[in-house]
């Protein structure tokens, strides 16, 4: 029986904490990877990130949180209804999730797409690109 492994902390030296503009400082937990670093940023400097992705995340989160949306799209086949799993190709503003969901729920695809197929919803001026994420039988 295997021992439950402890998530190994990356072997980067702890970065020196940068001074932040306390009036503008906000805290976030990074969601980019399971390390879940505790971040603090004033929009310019970021403390607590163990990798560059965390710094990008913190700055973005402070301005406009972005999220990848995962959902399913209805596909009526002769053999019955199939739900096709999809995700947005790029993260989408958190605030726009309801509108984006409304559009993708209205999407109907005539036959089961292969994994990796790209789909588009939204208007031509504000399109949202999705990628099919599963093999559906």
């Amino acid at each position: 029986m295997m021992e439950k492994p402890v998530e190994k902390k990356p072997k980067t030296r702890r970065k020196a904490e940068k001074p932040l503009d306390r009036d503008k400082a906000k805290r976030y937990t990074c969601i980019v990877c399971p390390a879940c670093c505790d971040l603090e940023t004033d929009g310019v400097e970021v403390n607590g990130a163990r990798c560059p992705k965390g710094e990008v995340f913190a700055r973005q989160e402070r301005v406009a949180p972005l999220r990848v949306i995962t959902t399913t799209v209805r596909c009526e086949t002769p053999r019955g209804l199939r739900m096709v799993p999809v995700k947005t190709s790029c993260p989408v503003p958190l605030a726009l999730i309801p509108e984006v969901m409304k559009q993708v729920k209205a999407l109907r695809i005539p036959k089961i797409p292969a994994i990796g197929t790209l789909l588009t919803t939204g208007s031509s001026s504000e399109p949202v690109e999705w990628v099919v994420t599963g093999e559906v039988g």
Partner: protein
Amino acid sequence: MECCRIDMIKHDHYDVIIIGGGPAGMAVAVGASSAGLKRILVLERHPRLGGILNQCIHVGFGLRYFKEELTGTEYAARYKKLFQQAGVEVKTSSFVHKVSDRKQVTFVCPEGELFVSADHIVLATGCRERTREMLTIPGTRPAGIFTAGLAQEMVNIHGILPGKNVVVIGSGDIGLIMARRVVLEGAKVQAVLEILDHLSGLVRNKIQCLDDFGIPLYLQHETLEIIGKDRVEAIRYRDNTTGRENVMACDTLLFSVGLIPERDLLIDAGIDPGDGIHVAGNADYVHDLVDWVTKDGEKLGRSLGNGNA
């Protein structure tokens, strides 16, 4: 002893029989094959491989193993390619319901009930979910009570939303993921109630599934009673920090109160792991990430091939 027909499975004795074709089973097969074992059989109860990953449409998989953030379904497709390269024999729609201490496996499939034996048997049977009944939460037994995993199957595979006004009981990852999922599908989630004083699931899931959608997480909150004659109408609960009881109206309960490694095959047979009987993946213990399931599974598979198991 029933003869095994040539067209069903290739041999009547294998080096390894792996029960379960989810991520753990596939990983053990890949590991065993890479270590030179030739007669490997994977028995999977569903018509296709992938296990629980097939209903995990959310991201959070593969960051460690593939160095890329994938959905569960993408992880399954990606790993299946590696698995298929290993050229291992697979029989789907085959339900193993008995394992003997003489390392004989009994399974049922549309062609019949067959026996097959091996030098090594690996249980890669995943987990089952803890249910309301196991917790003996008092009250009535109305419609509207689901485990989070069942709700996940309903929503993601069948496009069915079980209810509109949801309370999630337990802060396990599946509950958090399903809280977000049902909100995206148009339901309201009142709250997640957790009996312990800390979150059960991953912090990143709490943020992306609860905080993002304004769903409160109430720690040290105990569900005392389920109310509702035909359909769930409410739960009575207690804040164990103050002792105050209250009632929360809802029409659906999703239970995410823990996973139990699925070891019934061994329990029913009265055998323990050891001497040719192995347990892999979540059937061994509940892993946080499928990436670790894959790593552990491949390691076990290799050790079987190297004769170190």
